């Protein structure tokens, strides 16, 4: 059953306020998407060369969601990042070399070989690594927001999750809990139309934004392929959260352009659906926007720059050792509890806050 593309409607609380993104911000957004695109392209190639153990998941065609959402989060905010959200890791400052090493199970990967593919989170950059049971992380994000509220801190938590995972109990528990306690949490629903081979028509009967309203929380639906629209929606949601206005569910409508994983040829997706979405490639959309500026951005140069970074990262990751089997039993228990650290927050709107933290 074909699904329709919903236009970027002005949903609750997303005012048409221009000017939150400087030129540099907009370039940074494209850079993050390009990093994700090119890293995943390279990783797929390595996978086909037999250098990536296990499965390989990518978010091809969905780069705008994680890039835009993560860009709106402050350094002191916290994120739960899922498997099609690589750009969020990039925005937070995880180095490309460590990402590729992670895919290849090397000792220098983010989890040092303990978990695979995108099941990672750099704790020093405020990211919690996902589990495979979806959407467990919605509750973890809710809990982080709960702590912020208990301590009266102007911080927010954000989690990504997919259309499929809205069917599980933890989705309900998280939305309900966040609503009852009015927590500063942002739930980013990446509706990419398919959960493995299951289309959304078989997944839920009610529109996600309506479901959010049913829990008593704000909901917004945005064009998930427009990185600036995603940014704006999450920015507003964060503002609401920090003002004590409670949680928001931001539905980013997009399309999964590759299979569920590298081993899935997705023959169950109608060809014309993919064709329509191919014309709305998020990276191309942002590139076109920047090329069309009065002082056009040299997108090709940017792409070459990012590619060079990915190439260098590939060499470094390939040169990294595999983990020592003797260490397989280490690190089951912690010796001390160190909370998550702050991540990179490149949006110009946070510049004041960055300097303030230095002063405070």
């Amino acid at each position: 059953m074909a699904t329709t593309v919903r236009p970027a409607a002005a949903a609750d609380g997303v005012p048409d306020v221009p000017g939150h993104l400087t030129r540099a911000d907009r370039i940074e957004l494209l850079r993050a998407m390009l990093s994700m695109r090119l890293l995943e392209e390279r990783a797929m190639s390595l996978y086909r060369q037999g250098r990536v153990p296990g499965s390989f998941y990518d978010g091809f065609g969905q780069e705008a969601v994680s890039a835009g959402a993560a860009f709106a989060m402050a350094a002191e905010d916290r994120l739960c990042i899922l498997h099609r959200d690589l750009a969020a890791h990039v925005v937070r400052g995880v180095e490309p070399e460590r990402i590729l090493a992670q895919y290849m199970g090397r000792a220098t990967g983010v989890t040092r070989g303990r978990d695979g593919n995108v099941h990672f989170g750099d704790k020093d950059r405020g990211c919690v690594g996902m589990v495979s049971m979806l959407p467990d992380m919605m509750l973890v994000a809710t809990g982080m927001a709960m702590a912020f509220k208990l301590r009266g801190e102007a911080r927010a938590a954000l989690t990504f999750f997919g259309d499929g995972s809205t069917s599980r109990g933890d989705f309900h528990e998280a939305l309900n809990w966040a609503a009852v306690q009015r927590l500063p949490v942002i739930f980013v629903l990446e509706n990419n139309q398919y959960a493995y081979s299951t289309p959304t028509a078989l997944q839920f009967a009610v529109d996600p934004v309506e479901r959010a309203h049913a829990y008593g929380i704000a909901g917004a639906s945005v064009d998930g392929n427009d990185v600036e629209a995603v940014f704006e929606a999450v920015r507003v949601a964060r503002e609401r959260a920090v003002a004590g206005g409670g949680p928001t569910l931001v539905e980013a409508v997009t399309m999964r352009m590759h299979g569920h994983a590298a081993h899935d040829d997705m023959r169950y997706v109608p060809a014309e659906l993919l064709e329509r979405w191919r014309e709305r490639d998020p990276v191309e959309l942002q590139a076109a926007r920047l090329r069309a500026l009065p002082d056009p951005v040299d997108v090709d140069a940017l792409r070459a720059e990012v590619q060079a970074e990915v190439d260098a990262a590939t060499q470094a990751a390939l040169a990294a050792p595999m983990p020592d089997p003797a260490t397989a039993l280490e690190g089951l228990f912690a010796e001390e509890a160190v909370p998550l650290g702050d991540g990179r927050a490149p949006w110009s709107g946070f510049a004041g806050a960055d300097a303030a933290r230095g002063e405070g």
Partner: protein
Amino acid sequence: MPTLTYLQAISDGLREEMRADERVFVMGEDVGVFGGAFKVTDGFVDEFGADRVMDTPLAESGIVGTAVGAAVVGMRPVCEMQFADFIACGFDQLVNVAGKMHYRQGLAVPITVRLPSGGGFSGGPFHSQNPEAWFMHAPGLKVVAPSTPEDAKGLLTKAIRDPNPVVYLEHKHLYRRIKGEVAAGSYETDFTARIAREGTDLTVVAYGAMVHTALEATAPEQLDGASVEVLDLRSLVPLDEAAILASVRKTSKVVVLDEANATCAAGAQVAALIAEHGFEDLDGPVVRVAAPDVPIPFSPPLEQAVLPGVDRVKEACRDLLAY
């Protein structure tokens, strides 16, 4: 030194730690205004406020999952499951999110999950379970089970201070039945075993309520003057292997006692340990006494037939002593 019930000791330990560390807070169903289904947190909300004695929605997965989130940003949540049995609804969050997080991501999850466990009062199949074995089997979780008021307080303090997820089994049947001297102020009890009574002829290994059953069943006059050692495990993960094997070395005969269902209970792990590493010291087979593999029934004669009682333990010891 004050004499407190097991329940009061738990309250006391929790209160002390909440006073000492503002990061500690309690979360669970009915723990705030109502003071908890078993009144462990009675009066807490007046002292600490509703934020720190949090009445949560009816959502066990939510309780554990949000606790993980709060913990990784610097808090020390103490989750209360209304009955241990309901942890099944939060199993995924506890085992897959909390338990595996540090191994995978190097991120510590300092949560404590209190489980009011055990039967003996016609609670029926959903209010009488001893689910500790499920969590012994999940790498990354620590599991402790005090049997005395003194240990209840000390183990809870230690559990809260531990940077890892700790499952804390408080046996409901001991809440008001058992009293003991409990030091005032703050103290920790290490996650090790304790000799409840020294002996030379046979060892009974037990934990939780079964420690008291074992002590009663093996009092010297019960077994014609035989000298029976009772080892209270106190900690199931980490399991005090050295203490278990030392006791076996001393007495050479051992009865392993579980209130939980026999198959793969904590005692099965103890028995396997002894069989492999204590073989040379054995003068008889490793005997297990546990509940048979049925849900704990409700009607008193049925429940009493299922839960190991003093008589069953006594008979097992008598047989093994004679072997």
